[in-house]
């Protein structure tokens, strides 16, 4: 009887999973959609705090996954600050001190301009498929869009988050939501993508909300105001 039940469960789960596409294939399609050779973006980072919100405006130039340059345009306090990322190295130029410093080690774990994002979060350029085993665990509807629910479990040791959950639009292959978990299973961060727009046959989220789930508040909004592919 036990063998029969086990067989039904195993067979049933195989049928169940067979209805879902391969997780790696979905990640690959997301990558194909989101990655471009070169792009220029102008964006606003709206940092919501207890005493109100402040907006940081920047212009970024990105080439592939490993090279990017960002210049901060506003507010006056941050204006002129420049950030250069080349593979796993990051330099920051501060006009107030007229110095360029390279961030490394623990400094990368600091918050970017007081937001819910760390430099390390920005630096992450390894492909998810290289770091995680992917499994499609279900489908959900988010903002009237049907999406696959992907569960990612770390297969390498040196990752910040050992577990992630990713919601991917079934048609546009653009991520709609992401949750990052601690080893204990505690939800740490949540990212919600919205205002999905088609640009040159690709779909991009023009608004991303980053939220540290352990803190009160509304997190940090990242709004793309200008996007051009080269």
């Amino acid at each position, binding site marked *: 009887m036990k063998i029969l039940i086990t067989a039904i469960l195993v067979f049933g789960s195989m049928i169940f999973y067979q209805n879902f596409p391969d997780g790696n294939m979905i990640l690959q399609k997301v990558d194909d959609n989101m990655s471009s050779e070169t792009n220029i973006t102008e964006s606003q980072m709206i940092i919501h705090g*207890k005493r109100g919100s402040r907006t940081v405006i920047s212009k970024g130039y990105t080439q592939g996954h490993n090279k990017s340059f960002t210049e901060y345009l506003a507010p006056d306090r941050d204006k002129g600050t420049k950030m250069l990322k080349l593979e796993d190295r990051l330099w920051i130029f501060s006009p107030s001190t007229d110095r360029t410093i390279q961030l490394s*080690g*623990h*400094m990368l774990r600091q918050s970017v301009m007081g937001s819910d994002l760390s430099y390390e979060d920005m630096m992450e350029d390894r492909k998810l498929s290289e770091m995680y085993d992917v499994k499609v665990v279900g489908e959900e509807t988010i903002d009237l869009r049907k999406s696959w629910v992907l569960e990612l479990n*770390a297969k390498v*040791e*040196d*990752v*910040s*988050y*050992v577990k992630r959950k990713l919601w991917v639009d079934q048609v546009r292959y653009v991520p709609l939501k992401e949750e*990052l978990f*601690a*080893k*204990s299973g*505690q939800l*740490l961060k949540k990212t919600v993508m919205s205002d999905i727009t088609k640009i040159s046959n690709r779909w991009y989220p023009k608004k991303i909300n980053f939220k*540290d789930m*352990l*803190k*009160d*508040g509304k997190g940090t909004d990242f709004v793309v105001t200008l996007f051009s592919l080269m």
Partner: protein
Amino acid sequence: MTTIKLAFQLAYKNLMGAGLRTWLTVGVLSFAFVVIIFYNGLLDGWNQQAKKDSIEWEFGNGQLLNENYDPFDAFSLQDGHGILPDAGEKNLVPVLIRQASIYPEGRMLSISLKGIDTNQATLKLPTYLLKESTAERPVIIGNRMAASINMKKGDEVLLRWRDKNGSFDAANVTIVGVFDSDVSMVDNGQLWMPIGKLWEMTGLENHATLYVANKDYKHESIAGWEFKSLDLLLKDINDIISMKKVSGSIMYLLLLAIALLAIFDTQVLSVFRRQREIGTYISLGMTRIQVVALFTVEGSMNSLLATIVGCLYGVPLFIYLATTGIAVPQATQDMGLAIADKIFPVFGAGLILSTIALIVLSSTIVSFLPSLKIAKMNPVDALKGKIQ
């Protein structure tokens, strides 16, 4: 001998004769005397208390630091740790420090998560509370930390940390004790937990950032570890006290200068107005040096009177302060230095005697300088009262 006795008698008579002018000078000089002793006594009291508390709560008998750990660079905590075999047999208490965050009342606070051997008796930290607790992740915190996160014994708070690979982990910790220490360096922004638990949480089995030596520790050079002796660890406190003494001396040296100026002024006036008296002394057979000595004694007697007057109101005040102590504001205690709620000034014999010597010597010098003019006086002109 007779001349000195005469000099004292004359000096006393003249000073008393000057009335209010003498008592004003003596008053300012005695105030300077009391302020010098009070200020230095206060700093000595703080010094003694700060050293005692720092040794008992933080330094032990010295510390052995991992060569990659710099206490003044938080970023060095990432790699500044290692394993020292047989640390227990070497009379060393291991402490592992990791950076972490806690989330009290929905706000994030960066903290130092410190693991310590719960069986230790080198430091006054109540680590026995960690040992006795049945909580999954027990921690103890200082009362400053408890006040800043608004938490008390028995409360739980969410802790987020990274393991040795940099992966995030998060769980609740239970506050099993709140200790009261004057040393903010073991209190502000810190959580203390059993080192075994921290090893388990981070995967850094048997690692320590530093070791605290107990009184039986005998230092031998160990590769990869740097020993900081007690003298070196207490250097900061000594430097701060020395700096405070210098900056504080400006205030009481000004007071002293005012009093000495009054003595100098009186002496100049005396030599000018008492020319006939000077001429008479010399005519009666006194040498010029004896007359100079007489005037110098008269001037320096101000300082002796000031010492007596200072003792009259200073001694009861010092006894009262040394018994009840002086309250220190909470804000000052949070500055990173070991300052108790109350500082008990220490008025040592050395301090009192050196202050008396300073007052007497300086007033003797300023009395002597104007009196030197007497040595150049023509006794006949002096007798006639001619201005010289």
